[in-house]
């Protein structure tokens, strides 16, 4: 037997999925164990082994690899629980990370917060000024050394940092991606002083133009790198001690994994992986179900994550935002919109119903959790409406207090609006559906797509209860609720199914026409790095896929668009074709005629992505076929439609459903991890993998 294991370490739970080459899949869940998350990982592996009925050593001995996704680096950054690091940069430009291009004041804030200018701040700097030191040196945009590096000054600055207890230094000099000679020399000088100091160079972590994002990327990578190194070394040792045969892989935010030994040097690339897991899972499932265009919606208690899969490929991004800083990291694009099931309903000073943007967060959570929350949330409304079972969540393991939910809605919404508690709850539910539709639409349209051409996947604890409604507002015809054996660990399933993915990039900004020799040289260098990187993974690949791409922009316009470039060697025709593709894609994204081609086109950043396809692809097991009517497990009054009030509604227990069963709305399907609503006028069909497809009647 050969196994592949995916482990997703979240803030609360550590999920694991194990596939074998005979097509069976099992999942397990254990509490996460901060600050040392590796204990939770070992715990969940024990649980998997228990389910297999084998000793964990036997299981690991037959494991091809363990793919590991972790939220710990991201959490450390977001919670600012990171060690103090030093920063060395070009004299005269230290304040880039304090000026933050001004946009540090508002990046990552919600529309509501954007308007409230006087409540904004810029107090989230990465480090104090005394740890940001300058060195005399200067390279110009063409890579010429204008001012030589003052090595004595570098030594003095490093000693200053050392004296202040600094053990990790980020080095980011102007134009270092064009000529890294000074950065590399700085690293040598640091090593001469103390070889144990962790050093990250911007020319390696993020060789991309625009110093603010490059600086912050290099600094954040330095903040999490040493911690990640220690954690992974420790975990890999423990796994090897328990007999793990294959390598430990770490998930990156680009949707692919990398060997644990390679991860710390590019620590920042692992940071968003936990957010992108759902998109990877959707893309895997979409391949199986034959869906090419998918809107992936992962709705938890406090977050609502949206990703897009277009023509079979997850949409990518080259930049993300963490703690109001732009971060250069190739990533699957995930938008956080709204605040999931915890969005708070309230009545504003004008007497109007409002939903969000504030959220109850995990603590205290919705009022019905009985943890002291008094603000009514969408979850409270769903409980009052009978959508959620009064017996609680997770098959009754998470108790819910209906009275607390009713009281919160009565005080905060119903009485101020002169509505009954039930009508107020229905209004909250409906308003949340509509607003979610608006926000989803914004994500899809701004990416240049028409939502009507997509299938919507809805998962996470809170999404399936209202996905059919927000899909209607969005104009989507079909909704898929991924269920089946891995429903509770969808993200871990995505991990287990992922390949190795590496990317290297380099800015070499120039106006077109760019000499094809120059472009080819850039690509060849990057491809070499990627192929060497794949070799270092210590894995045998079925095949290696290499994609070359370049970010281009119109000279006078801000937006950069990534376009693929054919395999080398490049000639003028290939470069022209890339420019043509840029123009076409720009028009798709921003509208016909929106590109100012007369100003010329610029090639900014070259990128090579490599994928090592693993010879092992987990298959989901088919569900037993059922015939006849699906068994109704009970009935209760549920309030789904404004104006109709409570309607006696059939309740289905998911465990009793079989492939081919058809559920006619209105109906509620109870799954241990979530609750699915099939509204009136919709039909839900269970597919052969156990997923529920919801479509309009007659569609």
């Amino acid at each position, binding site marked *: 037997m050969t196994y592949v294991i995916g482990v997703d370490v979240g803030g609360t739970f550590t999920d694991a999925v194990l596939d074998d080459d005979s097509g069976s899949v099992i999942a397990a869940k254990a509490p996460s164990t901060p600050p040392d998350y590796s204990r939770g990982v070992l715990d969940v592996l024990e649980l998997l082994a228990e389910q297999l009925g084998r000793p964990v050593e036997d299981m690991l001995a037959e494991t091809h690899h363990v793919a590991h996704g972790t939220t710990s680096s991201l959490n450390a950054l977001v919670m600012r629980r990171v060690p103090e690091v030093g920063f060395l940069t070009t004299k*005269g430009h230290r304040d880039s990370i304090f000026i*933050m291009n*001004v946009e540090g004041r508002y990046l990552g804030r919600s529309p509501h917060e954007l308007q409230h200018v006087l409540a904004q701040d810029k107090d989230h700097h990465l480090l104090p000024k005394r740890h940001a030191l300058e060195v005399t040196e200067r390279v110009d945009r063409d890579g010429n050394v204008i001012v030589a590096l003052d090595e004595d000054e570098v030594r003095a600055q490093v000693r200053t940092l050392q004296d202040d207890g600094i053990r990790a230094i980020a080095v980011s000099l102007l134009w270092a991606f064009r000529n890294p000679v000074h950065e590399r020399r700085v690293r040598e000088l640091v090593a001469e002083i103390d070889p144990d100091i962790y050093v990250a160079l911007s020319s390696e972590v993020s060789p991309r133009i625009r110093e*603010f994002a490059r600086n912050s990327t290099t600094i954040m990578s330095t903040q999490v790198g040493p911690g990640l190194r220690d954690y992974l070394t420790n975990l890999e040792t423990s796994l090897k001690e328990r007999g793990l045969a294959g390598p430990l892989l770490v998930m990156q935010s680009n949707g692919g994994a990398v060997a644990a030994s390679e991860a710390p040097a590019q620590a920042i690339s692992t940071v968003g992986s936990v957010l992108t897991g759902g998109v990877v899972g959707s893309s895997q499932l979409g391949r199986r179900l034959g869906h090419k265009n998918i809107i992936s919606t992962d709705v938890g208690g406090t977050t609502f994550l949206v990703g897009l899969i277009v023509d079979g490929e997850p949409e990518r991004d080259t930049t993300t935002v963490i703690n109001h800083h732009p971060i250069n990291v190739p990533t699957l694009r995930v938008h956080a919109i709204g605040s999931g099931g915890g969005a708070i309903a309230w009545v504003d000073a004008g007497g109007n119903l409002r939903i969000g943007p504030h959220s109850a967060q995990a603590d205290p959570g919705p009022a019905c959790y009985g943890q002291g929350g008094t603000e009514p949330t969408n979850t409270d409304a769903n409980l009052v409406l009978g959508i959620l079972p009064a017996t609680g969540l997770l098959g009754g393991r998470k108790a819910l207090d209906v009275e607390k939910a009713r009281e919160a809605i009565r005080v905060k919404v119903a009485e101020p609006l002169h509505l009954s508690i039930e009508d107020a709850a229905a209004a909250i539910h*409906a308003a949340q559906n509509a607003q979610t539709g608006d926000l989803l639409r914004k994500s899809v349209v701004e990416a240049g797509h028409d939502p009507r051409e997509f299938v919507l996947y809805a998962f996470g604890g809170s999404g399936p209860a209202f996905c059919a409604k927000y899909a209607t507002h969005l104009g989507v015809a079909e909704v898929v609720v991924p269920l089946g054996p891995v429903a509770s660990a969808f993200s871990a399933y995505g991990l287990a199914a992922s390949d190795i993915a590496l990317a290297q990039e380099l800015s070499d900004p120039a106006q077109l026409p760019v000499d094809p020799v120059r472009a080819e040289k850039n690509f060849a260098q990057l491809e070499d790095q990627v192929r060497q990187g794949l070799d270092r993974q210590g894995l045998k690949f079925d095949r290696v896929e290499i994609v070359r791409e370049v970010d281009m922009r119109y000279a006078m316009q*801000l937006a950069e668009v990534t376009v693929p470039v054919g395999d080398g060697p490049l000639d003028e025709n290939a470069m022209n074709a890339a420019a043509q593709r840029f123009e076409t894609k720009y028009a798709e994204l921003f509208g016909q*005629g929106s590109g100012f081609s007369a100003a010329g086109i610029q090639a900014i950043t070259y990128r090579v992505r490599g994928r090592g396809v693993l010879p092992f692809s987990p298959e989901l097991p088919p569900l037993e076929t059922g015939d006849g009517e699906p068994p109704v497990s009970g009935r209760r009054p549920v309030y789904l439609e*404004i104006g109709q009030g409570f309607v006696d509604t059939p309740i289905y227990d998911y465990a009793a459903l079989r492939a081919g069963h058809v559920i006619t709305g209105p109906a509620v399907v109870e799954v241990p991890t979530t609750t699915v609503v099939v509204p009136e006028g919709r039909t839900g069909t269970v597919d052969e993998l156990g997923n529920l497809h919801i479509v309009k009647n007659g569609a």
Partner: protein
Amino acid sequence: MVMAVPGSERFSSRPVDPAELAAQLPESLPVHTVTQEQIDALDPLTYEVVRHRLWSVTDEMGEALKRMSGSPIVTDANDFDFAVSDELGQEVQVGLYNTMLVGAVDLAIYWTLQHRATNPGIAEGDMFLTNDPWVGGGLHQNDAMVYQPVFTDGKLFGWTSAIAHQPDLGGVGLGSFSPAAQDVFSESLPTPPIKVVRDGVLQDDVADVWVRRSRVPMMIGLDLRAKVGANTVGRDRLLAVIEQYGADTVKAVMKRMMADAESRLRGKLTDLPDGTWHATGYQDQSHTGDRGLHKITVAMTKSANHLTFDFTGTDPQSGVVNCTYAGMRGGVMLALLPILAGDIPWSAGGLMRCFDLVAEEGTINNASFPAAVGRGPIGPAWLTGNLVAECLSQMLDQAPDLDAHVQATCCGTWDTAVIAGLDQRGAVPTPFLSIMMDPMAGGYGAQPQADGMDTGGLFCIPLGRVPDVEMTEFLYPVLALWRREEPDSGGPGRRRGGVGASLAITPHGTSFPIGLVLASNGKAVSQNNGLAGGYPGNTGVEWIARDSEVDAMLGAGRLPAGLDEVGGTAELQPCYGETYVAPGEVFTMFWQGGGGYGDPLTRDPEDVVRDVREEKVTAATAEAAYGVVLDGSGAVDAQATDTRRQELKDARRARGPADGTRETIELTDARRLDDNLVAVTLDGVDQVACRHCASVLGSGAVGELDLVRYEGPVTDAGPQVVDGAGDYVDGAVHFRQYCCPGCFTAISTAVVPVDHVDDVTRTSRVLADARS
């Protein structure tokens, strides 16, 4: 008073009474509206759903505009905006970009309804274009607005609009800015509303007339299409909402959104004390060669739930530092939106019902045709906004729970430098023309509970940004020697003003001088005023080091950290001028931080320590302005600090001794008036007292507060204020401070012209019902 050109008054748009406007419309233009009953009948769910949908429509329109525009002023600096309005042009939902434009959009639509409804008519499928700042839509001719009527069932339902700053629309000066202009005929031609789209088709003849005037016609053509595209997105989405919910429902929501914003703002006003507050500020120089100080003065009266801004007494229009009525109104909005309506939805049509404007014609913020208005938004409209902000902050400071909305004045302008030359770095030399965007990183004013944001941006463009130095160097043949926050540039105060920053560039990759057009203000006299005794932020300054040794220095492995290191001759630049920076020379810009709040001698010494550590304040200024002495480890030397603070108080006492003695009063039931003053009611009469020493400073029965006035050289304000007004203007400028005669805490601190009239001692400033 300037005589307007006869016939030009037709183009001066003013706010209108909606009912009167509706009554004026011809029968050929039926409009869709709803009754109050329909508005009242909306259920809360529908209201919230449609309201959010309209927000989404507006947002989508703005995104479309931003993506399609080719102007870096749009894409990088976010100098644009957009709106959805009702059938009469009242703004229902506006964007968060240039908030000054909000005050101009509806004026253009009113004017269009008044002057275009019959001939050439307003019909489905039309779009109009204007860049006439007297008509509205924008604040100067560079602001071009494209807007369209949206029809449903043959009735005019509403309007969408998109405005963006255009890089060049002709005129004498590069970028349509001529610092020497004496009237509008030297500038870009103002174009009253013309129909640029008919029946859904962009009219080539009109578009050609439009782009022909520009030095960059292709870019203007692109931006025109971007705005047409954004409006099309807006209409399509709006019609989809109407189709789903019905025109009456959507309109009822639109009307209620405005009514809701209005009633919430009125509610907020009602809870505030009535009174009148004053503020006066200056434009130093009005054009190249001018040496005057040009004043804007405002009296803001709050009565019940209404505000009146009276600008009577403002100086006559002059040079290029003029704005039209639209600019004055935009200036009011730049302050009112974030300060009074940060927590109220920006349904501007409703918010604008809560105030009136009073202003004489022919003044620098209500200029008559043919005044030059190129500097309108960045000069007088901005100053108008900052003065309104100062009045609002004085008012709000008296409300105990609204101090989060109080703010000393922010950076007073966008320090402008247009650069143009020849880039010789590529195979083919290429001409370039751009504006240095870096001065967008201005400092914010301090607040009672927070320091001003350091390099927070420009208050009127909430979503502004500055480019990376690398992008600037990639695009233009310059080397940035530094771009850094400047310590001490934020005004000292109990809460410190946010610091500004500076930039130094030298040509790199060109053998020709780079041409410069400079426009700025706040160099001779402070514009970033402090509040409640807080000090003003820095004055701006630009230098060019002629014949410097910078190239030799770089070659020798040294990078300069200041102008004094590069050799050559330092040449001070005026507020307005045209010059150049040649290879081997260095050009530096140093723009404004924000004003401080409260007396710096009352600042927590630990905050000063943090400021010194974070290089926001130098150790010298910590001691001189804050009276905080640091020990060798950088921590507070408590004893030396006490001594130093006492010395500074004694120095204030010595320079302006108080007459006689005064009583103190029990402060137990005192009401806050600002950071220093409190009111105590004694025998039915309000007494004003010092919060720090309990001295009685005045009474509701007496018109004047008992404060000690001191006047001295501007150097008394600190190192951030350059002692060189005489380099720019003829009028003398001095430091003026009012202190409590009991404890000599600063009540008001300013750098102003010697003839500046203030009302710091006016009792009714702090007690509304005092004898004035």
